[in-house]
């Protein structure tokens, strides 16, 4: 019995660690589909719609990469992951890309050996409480019961926030956003805490969103972005520059509507390089010249992705805030396509 347990563990570990080399692009192209890790369901960011099609802000990243690499935005196998399973799924090679509002932290980048390819949403951790509780500040939450997704950075921030303010709380650990929502609505916890964007997205699905308030305190920096495994820099570059292409496209005025002809008509050399009508940027990535044009045509530029999924015109209603272009006073800034 001892031996079989040992063998089993080693076998799992052996398989799990067996994928670490610079060949993800070739694997994806051979497979004809991108395996993309997303959340198990967070409206606006990644959730299947009524037809079972995955939709959302994070999903668009998956589709953009699939369009750039495979020429087909629908050639994506979506793999739902929880806060606890996401890193194992990526490390083991079950997914090629994780686009699941994951916070870029030092230890994840360095110690867990992942490579964050950029930030697609600048976020911070917030609190949501029922309006009838009459709480107006997170500093009034002493003694509250808090629903929290386990295995996340929010779990650690929460502990730090409460202990640095000399307050106590009772954590209710849960696995997925759906579970958290159910527990919170049933009143099993007074407060739900996660990234402010996630709170807004969750609240948008409530029957009566106005009965719940987001507290003003934002207690952490949560730069959310897609990530890949360490060690395959070609693949990391593809994901990084696909994200940058969406950001740059908004800045340069390229949209999904005009991407078809603007590359041929514009005099702007950066747009021409981005869309592959000039220069060799695509070949440097090991892709076709119009890789970025395909990605933009498939999902739109960053602004279109934002407005279509989580922007102010959607039920989630997030303002651009920090996520505006640097030219509009935000933090979005793509390195030049040169």
């Amino acid at each position: 019995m001892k031996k079989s347990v040992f063998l089993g563990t080693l076998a799992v570990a052996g398989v799990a660690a067996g994928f670490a080399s610079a060949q993800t692009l070739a694997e994806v192209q051979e497979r004809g589909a991108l395996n993309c890790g997303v959340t198990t369901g967070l409206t606006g960011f990644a959730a299947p719609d009524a037809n079972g099609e995955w939709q959302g802000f994070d999903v668009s990243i998956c589709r953009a990469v699939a369009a750039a690499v495979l020429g087909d935005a629908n050639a994506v196998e979506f793999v739902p992951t929880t806060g606890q399973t996401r890193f194992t799924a990526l490390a083991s090679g079950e997914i090629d890309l994780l686009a699941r509002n994951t916070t870029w932290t030092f230890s994840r980048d360095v110690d867990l050996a992942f490579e964050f390819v950029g930030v697609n949403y600048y976020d911070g951790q917030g609190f949501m409480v029922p309006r009838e509780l009459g709480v107006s500040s997170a500093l009034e939450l002493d003694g509250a019961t808090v629903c929290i997704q386990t295995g996340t950075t929010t779990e650690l921030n929460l502990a730090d926030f409460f202990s640095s303010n000399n307050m106590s709380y009772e954590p209710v650990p849960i696995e997925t956003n759906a579970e958290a929502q159910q527990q919170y609505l049933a009143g099993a916890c007074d407060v739900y805490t996660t990234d402010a964007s996630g709170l807004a997205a969750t609240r948008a699905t409530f029957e009566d969103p106005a009965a719940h308030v987001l507290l003003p305190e934002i207690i952490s920096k949560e730069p959310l972005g897609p990530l890949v495994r360490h060690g395959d820099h070609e693949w990391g570059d593809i994901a990084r520059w696909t994200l940058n292409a969406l950001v740059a496209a908004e800045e340069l005025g390229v949209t999904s509507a005009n991407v078809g002809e603007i590359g041929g008509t514009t005099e702007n050399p950066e747009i021409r390089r981005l869309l592959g009508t000039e220069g060799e940027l695509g070949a440097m990535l090991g892709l076709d010249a119009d890789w970025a044009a395909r990605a933009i045509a498939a999902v739109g530029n960053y602004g279109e992705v934002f407005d279509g999924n989580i922007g102010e015109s959607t039920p989630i209603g997030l303002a651009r805030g920090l996520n505006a272009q640097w030219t509009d006073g935000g933090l979005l800034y793509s390195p030049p396509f040169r």
Partner: protein
Amino acid sequence: MATLTDPPQQSFQLSQLIYDTRYRSTTIQVVAFILIMAGIWWLGNNVVTNLAARGKDFDFGFLGSRAGYDINQMLVEYSNDSTHARAALVGILNTLLVAFLGCIAATIIGVTAGVLRLSKNWIVGRLMTVYVEGFRNIPLLLWIIVIFAIMTEATPQPRDFRGEDAEASMILWDSVAITNRGIFMPAPQWGANSLLLVAIFLASIVGIFVYRSMARKKQEQTGAQSPVFLVGLALFFIPTLIAYFILGRPVTLNYPELGGFNFSGGLQLRNSFIALWFALSLYTGAFIAEIVRAGILAVNKGQTEASSALGMRPNRTMNLVVLPQALRVIIPPLISQYLNLTKNSSLAIAVGYMDVRATLGGITVNQTGRELEGMLLLGLFYLITSLVISGGMNLYNNSVKLQER
């Protein structure tokens, strides 16, 4: 003259290793051993190479670093400044607590249901059949979630207890609150002299056992039966109660009170704990009921008839004649059920009960990225726990099994 020749020296040939039955089994074992060792070496080597390729090392140092997360149920001191090892210990104790209480409850439920299922009363027998079949044939995870969902959805929130005309009220003279966060009940507060009180209580329990053995001896010698149950009951309550008042009520009750967001004070049994405990006990209890039923049926009917012929009442027949013999059949499969219950407690993750699977095998692994190390430790813990349970129960089994000379 006949010369005596030695029998021909049989030369050993390699093919004998396979075709000669004297050597064959050894050959197979040696080959199998070599293959298994090669397999282990290959897997181990694979792990080392792949970990090195991913830039990861194999290191248990993470156990000593700050955990940074909070745990809601802890039997020992713990804060988010404690180490991951401490968090693992908290989880281990939570696992052991629910497993221990689960085994006790499952045994009580199982023995009761097993005996009652054989009842001649049609309704009682059928009810037990429904219970056993219902729990045995539906996955445990569903029961855990169902019980948890009922407790969360069907009970009032703490804030419903607030105000002049509150929607909900506490039961049992305002001492117990059943909420969707758990059951809040009074907790004993140990004052001065309470140690003495506990000592007196323990002494009276010893007294009960002494009295019982004296009564048995007397019965064996004279045949006269003493009122064991009534005297035991009196011994259980009276000395402690008298001492309680003489010592000036050293133990008081700390009542839960609604303050801030939640009830504070008293003892909180969390919904996650209750759901897990209940579901584990009921589920395993159904299996134990079948084991008990099988054990009782295994005792020859003649034993029951003989004791009836001696004029024993049915419940005495059950307790003194049938169950002691049935135990020999019951205990070995019972050990497996205890092991199952302990291992099944790892389903705690479904309701957020912070057992060792949730702390060491969940949050710690996730926050540190040490899956391999964490899972090895977790496996080791369950292995050791199972071996200890199985070893302990086997000792008990040896003491009740038929003594042969």
